[in-house]
């Protein structure tokens, strides 16, 4: 409506005025869109932070996520990441859960590498818990997928 009035009043410069107004309106729409995106971005960034806290906020949840990743299937990286999280989650988890998870991860690592030293390390952890079968085959089976 204001465009129409300026066109009728401005006379010979009317085309230029309408173009300027159209450009200004486009610019205004663009800056409003940017404002919407900024508002969304601020909340999205905050939400992502909160969501990450809810998902992995405690050492136990972090370890749970790392153990969950072992289904994917396990790699040396995911296994050693999970192994590093066990001592952090130990106060919350307690015993024998922490030792058993360590044994499981050592068995997964042994299965992945098939290295006698890794198998021996897992077998030592198994014997430390006085489990009935700590031979090579059992250790490799303990490291198999659930």
């Amino acid at each position, binding site marked *: 409506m204001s465009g129409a009035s300026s066109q009728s009043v401005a006379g010979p410069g009317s085309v230029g005025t309408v173009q300027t107004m159209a450009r200004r309106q486009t610019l205004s729409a663009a800056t409003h869109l940017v404002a919407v995106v900024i*508002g969304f971005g601020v909340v999205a960034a905050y*939400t992502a932070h909160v*969501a990450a806290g809810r998902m992995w906020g405690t050492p136990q949840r972090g*370890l749970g996520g790392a153990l*969950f990743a072992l289904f994917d299937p396990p790699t040396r990286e995911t296994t050693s990441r999970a192994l590093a999280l066990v001592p952090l989650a130990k106060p919350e*988890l307690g015993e*024998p859960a922490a030792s*058993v998870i360590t044994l499981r991860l050592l068995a997964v690592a042994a299965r992945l590498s098939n290295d006698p030293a890794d198998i021996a390390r897992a077998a030592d952890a198994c014997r430390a818990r006085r489990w009935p079968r700590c031979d090579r085959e059992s250790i490799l089976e303990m490291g198999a997928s*659930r």
Partner: protein
Amino acid sequence: MALETQRRASLRPWLTHAAAVLVGMAVGALVGRSTVADAEAMGKTFDREPLGHAMWLAYSWGSDEDAAALLRQYTARLRADPSDDPLSGPYELAYAEFRRAIVEHRSRAGLLELCASVPKCRPEKLDELVAKLAAGRKVQDDHP
């Protein structure tokens, strides 16, 4: 009067931009609410995972003591914080209770008593159920 109109005109773009930011934030909050709820559900799953993992390994390969201790912890956890899944939740708890009874070498009378306390457990199918669950324990031969 003209000055007031000019002042209002210069203020208007700021107000509409502020409103646009708020609209963006509102949309972000709507989307974010479900994201946070999903993250919380996932976090709960991750929270249970270490104990579930330990319980499973100890039941399959561990000593009776470790398996019983972890199953005790696991069932207590399931009771305190039941699974969100209304279908699998009660079965998960019942199976864990039976596994615990197996590693604790409970008598048949004890197993029947447990069966009576579990919904949908039929005493005539008890042996079949116990045999199925006991098959998951790979060290059972070492503990007659």
